[in-house]
């Protein structure tokens, strides 16, 4: 393992700290709830869901954080603004953890950004994400909002190599007139979480991991990703899954460890139901990483899994 020459930023979001040198802070884990086809959701457009089941899933994640020392966040995915409001209200009532707001539709994300500002949830909200499709409306909405934390997505559809992804952040590459980091700063995003964007294996999943290291070395901002999207989009694995579900589950959970070894500070590990498998794996990796850099000046913080579990 390794440490970075550049000072590593640690951001504090609703008392959850993300970033630092490898081995310093435990990896922050975000389970996704209300995702596409989530069985607890009965009407994704109106945001109707089984509240008891949702509370149970959130509680399990919180309990695992207490047990392992790995902080958590809740990643909510909403089809509509109406659904997003219901999800946000519910989750914020049931956990103190930061909440990532996500939708494939920017108008849903921006309306939600306004909403969390109105109801005082902006300080625990992470905007997911600012990316190459950013619009003037989105920039304006974020600027007006009180949100100061966002995931900056390094997906460059015109150049998915390492240089293309880095250029998107730095100067916009051939896609944007200026870099996403600068755009984020102008929107009032002070806490920047870099996500290289996990493309499918064969289309640059490995490059994304390398970008995590390069980005931390260059900027020092926290990095992380939804690494599980690599195995979940792997066609070969889908075939194996039909023979044995466990095969796909193992690849899915194990991918978390790959991101941690590539200096990941936070991980969106997919369905929140996987928390019971992901937290122990992440804690194990954090322990080993912290031990590996113990003589390089990186000291684990209080509450780190290395203190809690061994």
């Amino acid at each position, binding site marked *: 393992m390794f440490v970075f020459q550049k000072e590593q930023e640690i951001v504090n979001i609703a008392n959850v700290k993300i970033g630092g040198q490898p081995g310093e802070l435990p990896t922050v884990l975000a389970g996704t709830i209300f995702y596409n086809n989530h069985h607890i959701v009965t009407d994704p457009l109106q945001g109707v869901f089984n509240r008891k089941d949702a509370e149970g899933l959130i509680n399990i994640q919180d309990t695992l954080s207490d047990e392992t020392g790995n902080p958590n966040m809740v990643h909510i995915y909403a089809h509509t603004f109406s659904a997003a409001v219901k999800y946000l209200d519910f989750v914020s009532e049931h956990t103190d953890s930061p909440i990532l707001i996500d939708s494939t539709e920017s108008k849903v994300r921006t309306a939600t950004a306004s909403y969390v500002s109105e109801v005082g949830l902006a300080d625990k909200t992470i905007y997911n994400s600012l990316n190459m499709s950013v619009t003037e409306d989105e920039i304006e909405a974020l600027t007006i909002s009180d949100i100061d934390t966002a995931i900056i997505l390094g997906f460059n559809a015109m150049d998915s190599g390492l240089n293309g992804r880095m250029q998107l952040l730095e100067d916009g590459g051939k896609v944007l007139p200026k870099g996403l980091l600068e755009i984020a700063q102008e929107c009032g995003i002070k806490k920047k979480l870099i996500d290289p964007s996990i493309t499918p294996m*064969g289309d640059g999943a490995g490059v994304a991991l390398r970008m995590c290291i390069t980005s931390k070395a260059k900027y020092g901002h926290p990095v992380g990703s939804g690494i599980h999207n690599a195995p979940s989009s792997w*066609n*070969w694995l889908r075939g194996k899954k039909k023979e044995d579900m466990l095969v796909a589950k193992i690849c899915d959970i194990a991918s978390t460890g790959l991101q941690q070894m590539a200096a990941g500070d936070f991980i969106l590990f997919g369905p929140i139901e996987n928390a019971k498998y992901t937290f122990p794996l992440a804690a194990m990796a954090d322990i080993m990483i912290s031990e590996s850099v113990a003589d390089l000046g990186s000291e684990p913080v209080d509450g780190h899994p290395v203190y809690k579990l061994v």
Partner: protein
Amino acid sequence: MTSPSHGGGPEFESPRAHSGLEIVAMFEDTIVKDWPSVRGDHTVVDPVSHICVVTLASDMEPLENVCMMGSCKTENLGIEKIIANTISNINIRYILICGQESRGHLSGNTLLAVHENGIDEHGRIISSQGAIPFIENIPTHAVERFRQQVELIDKRGLVDAKKIQAIVEEYRSKGEPFSQPPLILESAKKKKTHSPVQEIAHGDMMIAQDILMDSASGVIFVEV
């Protein structure tokens, strides 16, 4: 719907410099060897059928007599796969677009747009309303070939398997294979290339007291 051309397309031009897929061969047969050349979330049923079915964000069981059937949830990589697998099988003359549109990504809208308008010099699919509608890994002339070879049947929202099957039966043998040979695109990523050794700028990651790593080049070295 727009009618596919039966050949006489433009001369092939040089692919965009950043294209990751290159044409490596043209075959005498109607289908290239080892088709489909790009893997994805699809099933091949009858390679000589003239119609493929794209179910967008809906997951459906493959139907009888389709050439290939599968989902397409993204407006960039998903579209690229459709193009690559279409131009490498000239039996394919029709693509039925059905199922639920992929929210935000709008892969159905984007597939229609690339067929109707093509791509600009930056690879952006002209007039697509999808979030990130770019073609990175397909050369421009391959996109043009796709536009000439097939006709799109826009039935977005349709999920009734019986109705879809009826359309398949209508088109499965309609017309002739495309008049130009199939094209295979080889991923540049899979070619063994020898990248020039990058210059090590400086060590920005420490692995041990005197062992440094330059994160940009990926080279680990001993500090002298």
